[in-house]
């Protein structure tokens, strides 16, 4: 039997800096959990309250469908907000994306500015945009639509720009060599090449918009979220459950529909 080589050490040697980094990460996780996560005692008492005969969960059942017609119309409004917000956002995302694309932007400064604005729109949550637009246009769906639009410019602008960066440059160069204008190159070569990616992004934007629009009502920006907040505030938990279930149906239907369209188009 050949003599076995000595086994390698179980752990690799690490530098002081690596040990410090590990300790810092562990300390961050531990302090975050200790300062913010609920205690076990709190969780136990909360769960007991939840399942008590007069508790929140028990009061939710059976769901109250007495206002189903009103909720349905509010869901339609929510869907309309989502479609309007997504459509406007996608339309305005296109010029932002063009200006943010290396080969299509007219000037590097404009490209940096466009990228910065897209990043800003994307970074600020849609609920914050909703509060901002409630101040501008008042309570109601208009503020929600504007919030969704800005959020979608940030979302779709980034993905549209990435798709245009990755598009084959050969057809674009060929059209430039013909003497085509910048718009000619964009509409004749870039957009057709990016169509599958644009379609996928647009459908994801619509899904995101539907999910977002349901929550915007919580701050007064229209849609079903207003009714959900009122139901919770008035302790009508059975009605709240009905709203949640109907929102679930809407979101799942939109997601399934958009998956089906993607599978057919792309």
């Amino acid at each position, binding site marked *: 039997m050949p003599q076995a080589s000595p086994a390698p050490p179980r752990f690799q040697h690490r530098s002081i800096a690596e040990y410090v980094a590990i300790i810092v990460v562990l300390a961050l996780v531990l302090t975050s959990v200790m300062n913010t996560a609920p205690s076990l005692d709190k969780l136990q008492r909360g769960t007991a309250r939840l399942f008590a005969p007069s508790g929140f969960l028990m009061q939710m059942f059976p769901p109250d469908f007495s206002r189903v017609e009103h909720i349905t119309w509010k869901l339609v409004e929510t869907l309309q907000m989502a479609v309007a917000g997504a459509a406007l956002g996608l339309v305005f995302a296109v010029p932002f994306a063009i200006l943010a694309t290396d080969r299509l932007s007219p000037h590097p400064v404009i490209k940096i500015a466009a990228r910065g604005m897209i990043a800003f729109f994307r970074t600020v949550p849609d609920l914050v945009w909703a509060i901002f637009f409630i101040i501008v246009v008042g309570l109601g769906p208009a503020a929600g639509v504007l919030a969704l639009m800005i959020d979608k410019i940030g979302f779709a602008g980034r993905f549209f720009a990435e798709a245009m960066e990755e598009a*084959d440059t*050969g*057809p674009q*160069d*060929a*059209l*430039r*060599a*013909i*003497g*085509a*204008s910048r*718009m*000619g190159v964009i*509409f*004749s*070569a870039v957009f*057709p*090449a990016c*169509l599958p990616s644009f379609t996928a992004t647009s459908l994801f934007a619509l899904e995101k918009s539907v999910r977002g629009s349901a929550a915007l009502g919580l701050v007064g920006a229209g849609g079903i979220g207003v009714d959900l907040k009122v139901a919770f505030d008035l302790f009508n938990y059975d009605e709240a459950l009905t709203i949640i279930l109907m929102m679930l149906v809407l979101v799942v239907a939109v997601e399934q529909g958009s998956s089906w369209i993607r599978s057919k188009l792309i």
Partner: protein
Amino acid sequence: MNLPQFVGTTTGPALAGPVLLVSDLSKSYGGPVVLRGVSFAAFSGVSLAIIGANGSGKSTLLKCLIRLTDPSSGKIEMLGQSVGDMGARALRQFRSRVGVVWQKHNLVPRLSALSNVLHGVQARMSGPRSWWQWAAPAEVRAEAMACLARVGLADKALQRVDSLSGGQQQRVAIARMLMQRPELVLADEPDASLDPQSGEDVMRLLSDLARQDGLTLIIISHRLEHTLAFSDRIIGLSGGVITLDVATSQADPAMLRRFFDKPTQ
């Protein structure tokens, strides 16, 4: 001005003055020099072949001619215009007069053959009606169909180009070039990515169309037999320098072989 020396300009169908005059052209991409003191002329109606091994500067020369890349020094006069002195708008108008057929056809794959051909009209027309075949004026659509017919693909007008064969795609690219109504045609190895038969068919088509329309054809080829069959004059590049300028009728195939990476049968 120090005019370049020409060889073989007395043969072939050259009748008028030069449509292209390249003087002392050099190009480097920061490091190595790709073109060094290149001078030559091309005459109206003549088919000029530029040959050379990989890295000899052929494609860079072609890009310099329409300023897809800027030369480091030297002068190019084409179709009576000084290419180096043009602003953006003038360059666009100048490019519209020059047809280019690329090695890779550079069509828009998801669009129909007709839409791709119609894009050639952007040389003289802008706006949405030149972007899509369904939006184009009737006379423009008719002209695009006529161009497709000239390359034998009228029956494929509404077929997506990515469903066509390589040879058919290159024919669509030639039809797009015809739609442009060019005064001079540059072809960068249009036969390179095709099988031998399709490559020969494409070269023959390009050569015939250029002769029919009286166009000057400047063609880069990597196939010796095509160079001999479809050109009136041959320029050979080695290491970015012109080392051969000869009428095709006087060219010795054995002498030409050194300009090709692999011996061509």
